[in-house]
């Protein structure tokens, strides 16, 4: 009989241990509005010496690594990059796809999670949206950087011109150009709309040039009921409208490859495959950024908590599994239907001279998240999940590297097979855009409230702990 009592005790103890402090959830740990506003204002206005040194160093890095190297390449020729005959696209296009992928995080976190009313999104929607805008800013440079004659790039823009020539709308590059422009514009508006109440808040609590800036940005927002109704409506419309834009952008980026005759590119699953990859790398990058924000910005440990790393970690795990499914699917279909060239190509990916890239991709995208992220304790350890998130982005970079130069290098004629080694100019430009991204982010972190205070406050107002008998049950009410 005693044996039957024991499990009962254990269950009892377990449930006791699992009864966590509800205050660890941001939504159930409200603070007075004024205090919270003050915290965000403080985070935004505090700059240390170290901050300015880093900003200065990054500005120099952008000037030298990105614009210096690019300028040199424009004046000397594309040959400064390591690309050669079979491999006409290299690090530039790899990094381009990488940044466009990163830019999917903002829309995913902000729009999709908003539409599905995932409450954990609230404190970091802005941080993710900023990644979208700056990721696009960094990525959109590459279609220009990789042009042989960048000084005539505007020939890709459709406008009535003296050449009596429209761009070729059959070319995937033109679709790409239009899709990225649309995404950049709409994501910037989508970043700006939820920002209005926050800059209005900042306007009322600042002086000097900041006051002037926020006054301009807030468009006279006062917080009346009518204004709130309109801004909610606008955000809602944009949240729904930007989702298909997000899906289309990376699908179109994938069509740059999928609509060609290149063996290994011509594939019908590239669209969803690229989107899943983009969201995987984007959400991981959100984790990376949140970790950095939490440890560098003031008062951030109140807003960004372990529960957020936990939730994002789960998302990454799911997307890593989805990515692995597509990866496997690609091989499966190729094995069934592919010809000898494709078979040779896939064999060379896994056993050729650059096979380490392929193994790095699999290790970082599949092994690392699957072996670590199932563990709740690890997901709740910020530094651990930070490392995982960095590794996933390394893996996603390796994936694009495998897809682009390693695939181009081994096409139908073995006589023309060729290996490609990135050269200093390409590496420098790629690092330069990374510096540009971080620099823009650093500057923005001191210019606009990185935490959407009104969204957090709105969430906290709708969350309540209700007493049901002896226990407290968290409950959410719809405000809209």
């Amino acid at each position: 009989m005693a044996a039957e009592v024991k499990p009962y005790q254990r269950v009892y103890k377990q449930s006791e241990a699992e009864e966590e402090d509800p205050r660890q959830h941001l939504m159930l740990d409200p603070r007075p509005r004024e205090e919270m506003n003050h915290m965000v204002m403080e985070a935004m206005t505090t700059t240390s010496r170290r901050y300015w040194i880093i900003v200065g160093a990054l500005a120099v890095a952008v000037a030298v690594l990105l614009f210096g190297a690019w300028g040199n390449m424009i004046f000397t020729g594309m040959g400064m990059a390591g690309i050669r005959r079979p491999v006409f696209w290299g690090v530039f296009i790899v990094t381009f796809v990488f940044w466009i992928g990163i830019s999917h995080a903002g829309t995913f976190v902000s729009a999709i999670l908003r539409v599905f009313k995932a409450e954990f999104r609230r404190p970091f929607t802005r941080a993710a949206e900023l990644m979208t805008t700056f990721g696009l800013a960094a990525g959109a440079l590459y279609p220009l950087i990789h042009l042989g004659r960048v000084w005539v790039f505007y020939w890709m823009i459709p406008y009535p011109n003296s050449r009596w020539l429209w761009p070729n709308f059959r070319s995937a590059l033109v679709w790409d150009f239009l899709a990225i422009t649309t995404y950049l514009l709409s994501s910037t508006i989508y970043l700006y709309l939820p920002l209005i109440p926050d800059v209005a808040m900042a306007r009322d609590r600042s002086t000097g040039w900041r006051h002037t800036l926020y006054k301009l940005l807030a468009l006279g927002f006062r917080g009346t009921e009518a204004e709130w109704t309109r801004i909610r409506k606008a955000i809602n419309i944009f949240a729904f409208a930007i989702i298909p834009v997000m899906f289309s952008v990376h699908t179109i980026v994938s069509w740059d490859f999928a609509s060609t005759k290149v063996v290994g590119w011509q594939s019908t699953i590239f669209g969803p495959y690229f989107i899943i990859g983009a969201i995987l790398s984007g959400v991981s990058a959100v984790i990376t950024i949140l970790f950095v924000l939490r440890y560098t910005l003031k008062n951030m440990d109140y807003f960004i908590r372990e529960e957020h790393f936990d939730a994002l970690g789960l998302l990454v795990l799911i997307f890593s599994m989805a990515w692995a499914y597509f990866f496997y699917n690609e091989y499966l279909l190729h094995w069934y239907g592919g010809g000898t060239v494709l078979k040779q190509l896939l064999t060379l990916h896994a056993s050729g001279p650059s096979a380490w890239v392929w193994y790095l991709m699999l290790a970082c995208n599949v092994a690392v998240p699957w072996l670590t992220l199932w563990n709740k304790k690890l997901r709740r350890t910020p530094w651990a999940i930070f490392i995982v998130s960095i590794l996933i982005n390394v893996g996603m970079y390796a994936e694009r590297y495998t897809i682009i130069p390693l695939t181009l290098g081994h096409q139908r004629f073995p006589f023309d097979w060729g290996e490609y080694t990135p050269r200093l100019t390409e590496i420098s430009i790629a690092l330069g855009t990374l510096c540009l991204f971080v620099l823009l982010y650093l500057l923005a972190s001191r210019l606009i409230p990185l935490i959407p205070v009104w969204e957090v406050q709105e969430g906290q107002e709708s969350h309540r702990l209700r007493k049901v008998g002896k226990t407290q049950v968290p409950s959410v009410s719809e405000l809209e």
Partner: protein
Amino acid sequence: MAEVTEEKMKWGMAIDLDVCTGCNACVTACAMENNIPFTGEDESGYGRGLHWIRIQRYWHGDYPEIKPDYSPMLCQQCGNAPCEPVCPVFAAVHSEEEQINLQVYNRCIGTRYCANNCPYLSRVFNWFDYEIPEPMAYYLNPSVTVRRRGVMEKCTFCVQRIHAGQEQAKAEGRPVQDGDIVPACAQACPTDAIIFGDLSDPQSRVSQMARSQRSFRQLEELGTEPRVIYLKGGGQYGG
């Protein structure tokens, strides 16, 4: 005087692999005719040579009984060219008159998309501005433009020679005859492996070769409709 009606001609080329010796004369002749700059040993070895035609060499058999197999590869002037739809600025276009695939250098912005999409890898890119030093500059062909850095280029079937041949025939008041027009590679070929002519004329030499039992087209299964016909018998048809 008889009015010469210009009929559209379908230019094509036949390359007899059974008589090709892989001597590279066509490569040299093409470079001379089309103002192709030298890129130097290192660059060329890295895969940045600008040749519009190249000899692919494959080895057959097991050592010590190995045999080389040469296959000149140039732009196939596809009827359904993969390079054309991908160009965002219409730099890779099909010419209505000659029915060949042309590259408009002045329109090219250097996306290199066409080169990726060419299954024959027959397009080359001007990675730098290549200098042609003074005495060598005299060999430049005035009928062919020189290209600057950042543009794509490729075989044109010596379109300048096609035009010259047509104008010559027009001046003499006669239609263009088979053999009037010879591209540089065909002219230089010591074994007469490269034959150029009008594929729409069933009597032309190139048409007769195209009908040969030994004829095939490179990567025909891709549906590119190449205009270059290869002949190879593998020693079975008296080749």
